[in-house]
């Protein structure tokens, strides 16, 4: 299967105020972009629970895009900074779980950037096409490795995971 024949499944979480409005603007301006990205609206990129991302991968998504307002422009003051931190954590986590971290992307798009959002979706879909389908289970030789990887993560972060008093 060539890159262009592969129709990847991409889930895009867009925040209501900037990036979802940008996608509306892309529509109003009739800007064409890849149909392979399926969109879910959240109020803020900060609402994107790590479980949403992992569930998307578990259900067969080949890539997950999260888009929020530009740093400093968050409708909820500063919540996209929390998204930024969570994104780094998630990239680290999925890599150890056998998923290429480049299957996860964070994009900032203001309400005026319909064109930019469309281009970002296109370039992400193209990158996922280059990566090919996510064949998660094939990344593990045997099931035991997955448990080992999980344990290693817990071990590395023992301190951070301690619940605050």
């Amino acid at each position, binding site marked *: 299967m060539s890159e262009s024949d592969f129709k990847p499944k991409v889930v895009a979480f867009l925040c209501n105020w900037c990036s979802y409005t940008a996608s509306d603007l892309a529509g109003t301006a*009739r800007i064409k972009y890849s149909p392979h990205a399926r969109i*879910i609206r*959240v109020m803020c990129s*900060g*609402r994107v629970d790590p479980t949403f991302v992992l569930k998307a991968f578990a259900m067969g998504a080949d890539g997950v895009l999260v888009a929020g307002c530009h740093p400093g422009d968050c409708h909820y003051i500063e919540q996209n900074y929390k998204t930024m931190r969570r994104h780094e954590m998630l990239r680290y986590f999925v890599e150890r779980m056998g998923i290429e971290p480049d299957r996860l992307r964070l994009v900032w798009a203001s309400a*005026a950037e319909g064109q930019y959002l469309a281009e970002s979706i296109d370039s992400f879909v193209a990158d996922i096409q280059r990566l090919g389908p996510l064949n998660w289970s094939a990344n593990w030789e045997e099931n035991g490795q997955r448990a080992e990887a999980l344990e290693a993560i817990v071990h590395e972060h023992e301190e951070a995971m301690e619940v*605050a008093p």
Partner: protein
Amino acid sequence: MSDESLRIGVYVCHCGSNIASVVDVEALAKFAEGLPGVALSRHYKYMCSDPGQELVKRDIREFNLNRIVVAACSPNLHEATFRRAAEDAGLNRFLVQMANIREQVSWVTEDREEALRKAKAHLAAAIRRVAQHESLQRQFVRIQPRAMVVGGGIAGIEAALTLADAGRQVILVEREPSIGGHMAMFDKTFPTLDCAACILTPKMTAVKLHPNIQLLTYSTVESVEGSVGNYRVKVRRKPRYIDENMCVGCMLCIDGCVFTKAKFPNRFDQGLGMRKPVWVPFPQAVPPIPVVDPEVCLQITRGKCKQGCVEACGERNAFRFDQKETIEEYEVGAIIVATGFKTFDPSVIPYYGYGKYPNVYTSLEVERLLNAGGPTGGKLVLRDGSTPKRVGIIHCVGSRDANYHAYCSRVCCMYSLKLAHLVREKTGAEVYSCYIDIRTPGKGFEEFYNRVQNEGVRFVRGKVADIMPASANGNGQGENTSNALTMKVDDTLLGTIRKIDVDMVILAVALEPQADANDVRRAFGISCSSEGFFLEKHPKLAPVNTASDGVFLAGACQGAKDIPDTVAQAGAAAAKALALIDAGQIELEPNTAWIDEKMCSGCKTCIGLCPYKAISRDEERKIAVIDPALCKGCGTCVAACPSGAAKQHLFSDEQVHEELEGLMSYA
């Protein structure tokens, strides 16, 4: 809710041909019929029309529907419409979900097959999601019946007067010592040539005298907190060093100042006129109260001065050299942002020679020279005091130029025509107007253009490529005085390069966003369009609203526009603000977060994540508590809660998970 008791009604909208021409709506509706919980599925030409809404209402009653999914446009457009329709038919308004198959499918997808696939995925996701929706109570809070207007140009003045005349309290904030803005700088206004002061100063005085307007000049907005209906705005009030309540506006202090000569550039006169350390921007300033410039006043810089000003003030005793900056807080229900524009600085275009040749002026500088209250008393003179005999006007300086601003500034053609008329009227000089296109689309504009043509102004169609001293050019046509400049212009009608000698060049500079537009934008939580002007919520449906509810736009801060358009827009913004604050109460966002007390371990993870301080810890019960009036509904705490105790109305984990499952099942 179990599948058996679910009765979902699905409605696929054609939106005329907007959706139907790309997405096979019939196939989409048929597809939905087979999905779990769907009781009926229809497609209709215009779901948002009255008959479309009636269809939903009738079905809810007739077929006992308990969930509604509408596959149509963006929820930002019509979610409210269908929520209301559901409510009218007795269904809780939050049991409705939209699938965006117009903005996100039909308008952005070329391949019909792919469009149908994507539409199916979005529709299936909405159907799975709505099954998890719950009835919610609508919550309301009281609205502060006051408004704030930020910016005291013609836009802010008009908006403030409209609100005040309607009997509402208005706080008008202006950063300069006087209101009036750019309009106060102009001599005449196009196309009627009424004198700007004659139509503006009565409005300025009306602001000052209006019992419902509190005028805060020489003040800036420091911060904005709260939300629609209940904004708390901190205003920084710069010290005037003069007590506004004691000063009667006699201006004797300016005469009394120990500086006998005005020697500091007056920015209101674009630096062409001079002022003293104690000054007013222009004679008709409102309020008519001088300010002391702390950077040059001897009493303030050195602590020692004969204080001629204080002596002149006498028993009115208005001077306060110990005045300090203060921060005042105001609670308002609505805010109108009318912070205006600035003019483009042409010195960044080297070939126009602005800043290099003294007789190259910006249009705003010439406005001040022509103004009877300006630095020359209304006489149009060159830097050496002589009257120009030949004047060149260059259009589109900084506008319609990919290197600076791609947009058309909309007013430059008309103000250039006005300046051409005034220059001819006052000096009889020959005027050469170099344009790319003349754009005169307003009421009475084309007629004005014809009039100016008939007055003998010479129009040259072409861009000016260079401005140089006339002596550098042997083929000059005009008198070779030491001041003379040559404009090199590619005359596209004659098809030749022309060299035109002039004494004065006027650059019709672009209008651009204020230098601090980005800070202002952030303070009010609004967006900018790509050129930096403030972004309206929708160009046609909500042209004066912004992404922040309760914050409205008026005037050139939203985009370059002339005075008639600005006044009309200011009236619209005032009406919108009035409609909001007169409603008395406002509905809170329904998507607030809440804590499932049984699941909360009291770990405090959520508390530090909330920028609104909406979450606190009940120390007795050792659990987190969310104040719904403070929660804005971002859901960040919900995503971070390690035990799943923090939940969000309308965006619960279950709802998003179901949406994801629907999306992936048909992706």
